[in-house]
């Protein structure tokens, strides 16, 4: 749970479907949950990775992105940029370099959402 000032809210409201707004009685104060299920993040990642699927092997949480798929490192970084904006997090390049699987990418995104600092 995080309290956000109205100024910070504006960009978040564009993704309003992710937010639960609780009316706790205090005017001007909105409490948001940034919670999002792991399955949902994985689903979104898979949508981005689909074009790079190699053969019939399905993309799962264990898929090693740079190895099991036909995606190159630049395209991985571009996909990460899309995911950053979708989930409103920034993933430093050094962190991206340590991510191998779809699961790891999803967990990184969820961790950053829960704890942006």
């Amino acid at each position, binding site marked *: 749970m995080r309290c956000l000032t109205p100024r*910070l809210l504006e*960009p978040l409201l564009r993704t309003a479907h992710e937010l639960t707004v609780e009316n706790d009685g205090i005017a001007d104060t909105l409490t948001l949950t940034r919670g999002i299920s792991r399955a949902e993040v994985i689903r979104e990642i898979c949508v981005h990775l689909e074009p790079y699927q190699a053969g019939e092997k399905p993309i799962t949480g264990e898929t090693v992105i740079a190895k099991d798929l036909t995606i*190159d*490192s*630049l*395209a991985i*970084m*571009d996909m990460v*940029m899309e995911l*950053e*904006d979708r989930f*409103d*997090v*920034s*993933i*430093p*390049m*050094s962190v991206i370099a340590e991510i191998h699987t779809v699961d790891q990418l999803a967990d990184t995104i969820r961790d950053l959402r829960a704890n*942006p*600092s």
Partner: protein
Amino acid sequence: MGLFDRHAGLLEAYRDVRTTGYDPFQIRMERVLSPTKAIINGRETLLVGTNNYFGLTFDPSCMEAAIEAIRAEGTGTTGSRIANGSYSEHVALEREIAEFYGKKHCMVFTTGYQANLGVISTLAGQGDFLLIDADSHASIYDACKMTQAEVVRFKHNDPSSLEARLRRLGDKPGNRVVVLEGIYSMLGDSAPLREFVDVCKKYGAYVLIDEAHSLGALGEHGRGLCESTGVIDDCHFIVGTFSKTLGAIGGYCVSDDPDFDILRVTVRAYMFTASLPPSIVASVRQALRVVKAKPELRTQLWNNVATLYDGLKAQGFTLGPEHGPVVGVHLPDRMTAIGFWRAMLDAGIYVNVAVPPATPNGVSLLRCSLCAVHTKEQLDHMVEVMTGIGRQFGVLPDKQLRAAGAR
């Protein structure tokens, strides 16, 4: 594992490239005749891919200055400026570049690559944030590997993408350094610099702009995009190179920051490599004088840009988004690009071929760079040649088909 096994994918791609005949990465200029002509494969070839924007490599005054400097001070400095000292000419060159931009300080490097590498990796350190355009030059990416700062990429030429990333940093402590380029080297497009500067001001971020391809080409005095968009004072660090418009080699960074000179004892790419030789310093100083004295070179360059860009566009080629001294021609895939490149070389025209992973978004390109001293006839001829090859390769619709379609 063998030492080269990790490059297996690249080796395979490289082998593909070479099967087409010539190797675009090992082109031999048997003899360079002028800024626009060389002998390649025994044939006189038009050069439209050498970043020689003002054609100053053969400017008689620059050549004379270099020759005189060699006679006066020898062929090299044999060491770095912190070890062997600065020659008066290094100091004079730095003063002249600082004056050119109206900035207080300038540091000259042995290449532009080293200027970016050293300055960027040193400015942003542990606890800081480096925000770079996704299409940044390799020297900027390499600087990112050397810094302890957190590096985040934003979408190419997209101020709102930068803003989202600055906003997400919230009130975390640490400097924000944003890295931009005046003109991007693959597609010739320039940054919406004013909008970027506004975002940086809003979030208190420092702006570093690399004017490698825009020096001379943009702005009333040729200072680059920072001048043409009127934001020189808002660009905290301006980096550039002597290897393109100024026709030699070397790099620089200018700034008004009062503590700028501390970089002389912190930037390793400055401290641990030999300084520029006297001949280069002399020719660059003269080239800068030429840039100031002959604005008509800029006019000629842009006239040539229009001839090539508009000519190719009219024939139906897909090009970079705007006029620029670099004209990127999109081709459908790697092998077409390489075949097209080779056919052009056979027809006596040299351009660069750029294929993934060296290009943004995996595109395959012919990268043409214009020169103020190309003639209109040369460029009209080039459009004709490319149109013919484009039809042969099925990149452009066949003439008959076009005629039939028009009826």
